[in-house]
């Protein structure tokens, strides 16, 4: 069994606010999570869910109110452990007076690399992220997508064992996203552990061995994208045609596309629904199982969280 690359125990982050900093806002509440060595782990959630807070805590950019975390069995307070970690910040911004080659060389100098090794790696990374032709242009002239590529290059430049990417697809066009996906898969092939946050669920479904869903600062589920969804919602879809019109309640519930209707029902209501539809004059074309996508699972959690937040607000009044 592979070891753990990232271990998070009861990690909590509260931010004081108000005039005297007496009030507290909880950004992350008792997070417990593990990322296995060699896996691609997706950390998904809406904006403000606590994804970036978790990543910043792991990178030592902010400090936890409670709890602890370890990366490669070393505490996150150990700066030397950063030799083995690559990090891409959300919406990265680098020294705009430097060129891409210079900024990569600058970051490479913090690792124990010889001048020749630095030069070779910088060239290789620029090629890998498709910036070799723009290597001598100052970053102030770079687009958001190009900066994202520089950010990715500096994250993997020193061949880290663990790569943590905060919204790596953000700001990229479809080609750029495809390239980032390929880089993540390549890292996995090389045995690296990759943890990345995203709200683009298709990327998570496509790339991740496991995902963790975080909403409202709390972890709502962890598992392989398929199992996570299967556990939650399943249903049946009936596709049918209707000669003429019908006032049957189930027909009214169905979605009409052209001359065909689609109706989703719970598994246990399937036969009853078919009978009602046939009685209303419908011709059943097909019945299929509906597997909820990760997106639906995610949206259900977000909706539940918002409903809970509204309820608390109302009761508070």
């Amino acid at each position, binding site marked *: 069994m592979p070891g753990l690359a990232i271990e998070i125990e009861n990690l909590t982050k509260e*931010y004081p606010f108000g005039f005297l900093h007496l009030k507290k806002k909880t950004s992350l509440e008792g997070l417990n999570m593990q990322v296995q060595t060699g896996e691609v782990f997706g950390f998904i959630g809406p904006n403000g869910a606590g994804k970036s807070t978790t990543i*910043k805590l792991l*990178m*030592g*950019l*902010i*400090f936890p109110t409670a709890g602890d975390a370890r990366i490669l069995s070393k505490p996150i307070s150990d*700066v*030397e*452990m*950063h*030799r083995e*970690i*690559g*990090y*891409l*910040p959300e*919406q*990265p*911004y*680098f*020294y705009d*007076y*430097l060129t891409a080659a210079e900024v990569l060389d*600058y*970051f490479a*100098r*913090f*690792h124990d690399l010889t001048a020749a090794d630095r030069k070779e790696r910088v060239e290789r990374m620029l090629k890998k992220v498709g910036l070799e032709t723009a290597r001598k242009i100052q970053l102030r002239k770079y687009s958001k997508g190009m900066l994202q590529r520089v*950010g990715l290059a*500096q994250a993997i430049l020193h061949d880290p064992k663990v790569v943590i990417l905060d919204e790596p697809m953000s700001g990229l066009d479809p080609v750029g996203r495809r390239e980032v996906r390929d880089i993540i898969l390549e890292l996995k092939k090389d045995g690296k552990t990759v943890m990345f946050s995203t709200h683009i669920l298709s990327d998570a479904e496509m790339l991740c061995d496991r995902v963790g869903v975080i909403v409202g600062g709390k972890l709502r589920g962890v598992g392989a994208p398929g199992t996570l969804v299967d556990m939650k919602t399943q249903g049946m879809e009936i596709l049918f045609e209707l000669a003429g019109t019908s006032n049957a309640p189930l027909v009214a519930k169905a979605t009409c596309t052209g001359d065909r209707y689609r109706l989703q029902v719970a598994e246990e209501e399937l036969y009853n629904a078919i009978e009602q539809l046939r009685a209303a004059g419908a011709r059943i074309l097909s019945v299929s199982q509906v597997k909820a996508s990760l997106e639906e699972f995610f949206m259900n959690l977000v909706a539940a969280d918002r409903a809970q937040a509204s309820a608390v607000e109302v009761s508070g009044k």
Partner: protein
Amino acid sequence: MRRAGVVAWNTFREAVRDRVLYNLVFFALLMMAAAIAVGQISIGIEQTVIVSLGLSAISVIGLLISVFIGVALVSKELDKRTLYALLAKPVRRWEFLLGKFAGLVLTLAVNTAAMAVGLLLVMIYVKHTLERSDASVLVAVYFILLKLALIVALALLFSCFTTPLLAILFTVGLYVVGLYVLELRNLPAEVMSPAAAAFTRGLSYLLPNFENFNVMALAAHGRAVPGALILQNTMYTVIYCAMVLTAAAAVFSRKNLK
């Protein structure tokens, strides 16, 4: 330390690419105008006028750079979030601060040295020679550089825990107060209670003493600066900067980056 050196070199490179050293053009023009004017308006006191003007310009220009860029050293990295990727490397926060400090002091040293060369050239132009006593001008320039290093350290400390605007105000305020430290220390004891007298005296030792760095009058008149003062000011700057930077590192090491 090697990592602090990497940060320092990049800070120097940033200053050069952001055209900070363009102030040298202004200084050169000022000194050229002074050299032409001094021959016509001052008879026999050319050295005094040129040296006073030159040292004042070096001090004011250095002061502006050290306060404004000193405060921006950390706040700009925080605002633009360039610090995130850097601190994800094996770099300690105090190494980052030390590197930033050293980088700006290096910039100021290059800038001040270039202006000192300009001042000496104008002195040669006006006097047609340089004398041994003119070495005191170089000592005065060295003291200005020490003063600027202290200001950078203070600016860095304030920028670690407050907004850039307040950090500028605090730094300038402390500089102004530091020019009158000896007056504060020597306040007549009879006008206040013993406790207040002890407090002001203690405060006068705690506040940075910028008064000792001013040897412009000696340099302008070609008088030698005592060797003991050179040693004292050097030691004072090193120790005071170390204390201020330690405080800055203590604050910054606990800071949550937004």
